[in-house]
């Protein structure tokens, strides 16, 4: 599995801003790149996977940690 090539710190942002920032970041990446997103709004647990499904990107990691949520998204 590929490690992340780019990171996005979306902590403190409320939904849907973490998704918007993820979308803007991924637009600049190439297929196969992996983006790590870290966010704190619990809404991301639903929104980021839904956004990935809608756009066909692969969600490699979706993890709830003590203070935040972490995702790895492979651009497809």
């Amino acid at each position, binding site marked *: 599995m590929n490690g992340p090539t780019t990171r996005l710190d979306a902590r403190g942002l*409320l*939904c*849907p801003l973490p998704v*918007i920032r993820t*979308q803007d970041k991924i637009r600049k990446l190439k297929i196969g790149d992996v983006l790590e997103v870290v966010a704190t709004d*619990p*809404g991301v647990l*639903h929104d980021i996977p839904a956004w990935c499904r*809608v756009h066909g990107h692969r969600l490699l990691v979706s993890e709830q940690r003590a203070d935040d949520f972490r995702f790895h998204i492979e651009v497809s």
Partner: protein
Amino acid sequence: MRNESANVPKRAAALISGGLDSMLAAKVVLDQGVDVEGVNFFTGFCVEGHTHAIRKKDRSRQKRNNALWVAEQLGIKLHIVDVIDEYKDIVLNPKHGYGANLNPCLDCKIFMVNKALTEDVLDRGFDFVITGEVIGQRPKSQRADTMPVIARESGADDRLLRPLCALNLPPTLPERKGWVDRDKLFGFHGRDRKPQMALAESFGFSDYAQPAGGCCFLTDERYAGKLADLWEARGERDYDFDDIMLLKVGRHIRPAPHYKLIVGREEGENNFLSGYRRRFVHLDTVSHAGPLTLIDGEPTDADLVLAARIAARYSQGRTAAAVSVNVHHPSGDSTELQVEPMLPTDLEPAWHIGG
């Protein structure tokens, strides 16, 4: 760029609010073989997202983003576009005025349709735009005489298709060119929602969101009252993103023109407000469990005592003889006050902003 060849599938941008009408409109065109992508604009006033996550009681009920949910049901892409900054001009200076509250619906629609065709992040690649508008559905923006205004002023002209009421309007470019079959569009009108519900059923849609009022907080009387109060207190019609977020949260109480209190109503709101602690004078109750209270404005020492009494009134110590309240300043200094909780009868109804 728009492609003019009749054989290449046409691309349409469907404005997706997360409600039923825009979902149906997109579906009707999608089923005709058009390549439809959803566009959702985040203005900062959207009922979506944030507020569901802030209030604890709402958290369990509703977590999904309805626009994303719609896109997933339809199997289309959804672009969520941040228009917070540009949208300010629409809210502050609507050419066509406001609806029942501070909702500039007509200008808003013009803005969004235009944006769907011209926004760089959307690659400007759409041949036409789809909305879920229905003539007569909303008194301000969805009337027979406003439909051509939106088409004209957005610059979309006849590239704006309203599949749910198309039969009541002249044929648009996608219909005339045969990209969509007019016979498969609809002639809904008025406030009756039954035709939409029957169409939803025929598509097998259930569990769709049915927001009361409108798609944004500007249609909400209480919210609009708080925004108008903010402008009056500051002596200018302006706002930033944090202002409009804070108006969604807590009780807003203004005992005097130069300051107001924002009192958290429950744990989720207290957590949200605590993110602003470093920017505002804020109060927390020490002797009893209670809300986090931000003070917006320039309070004097006497004002802070009154504010502490109000904060105490919303704490567990509301019936106690005295409650200790910490007053924290953004500089890091803090003072502890012993105050008598304010009696509910002493809290002037007029201080409650937004009713």
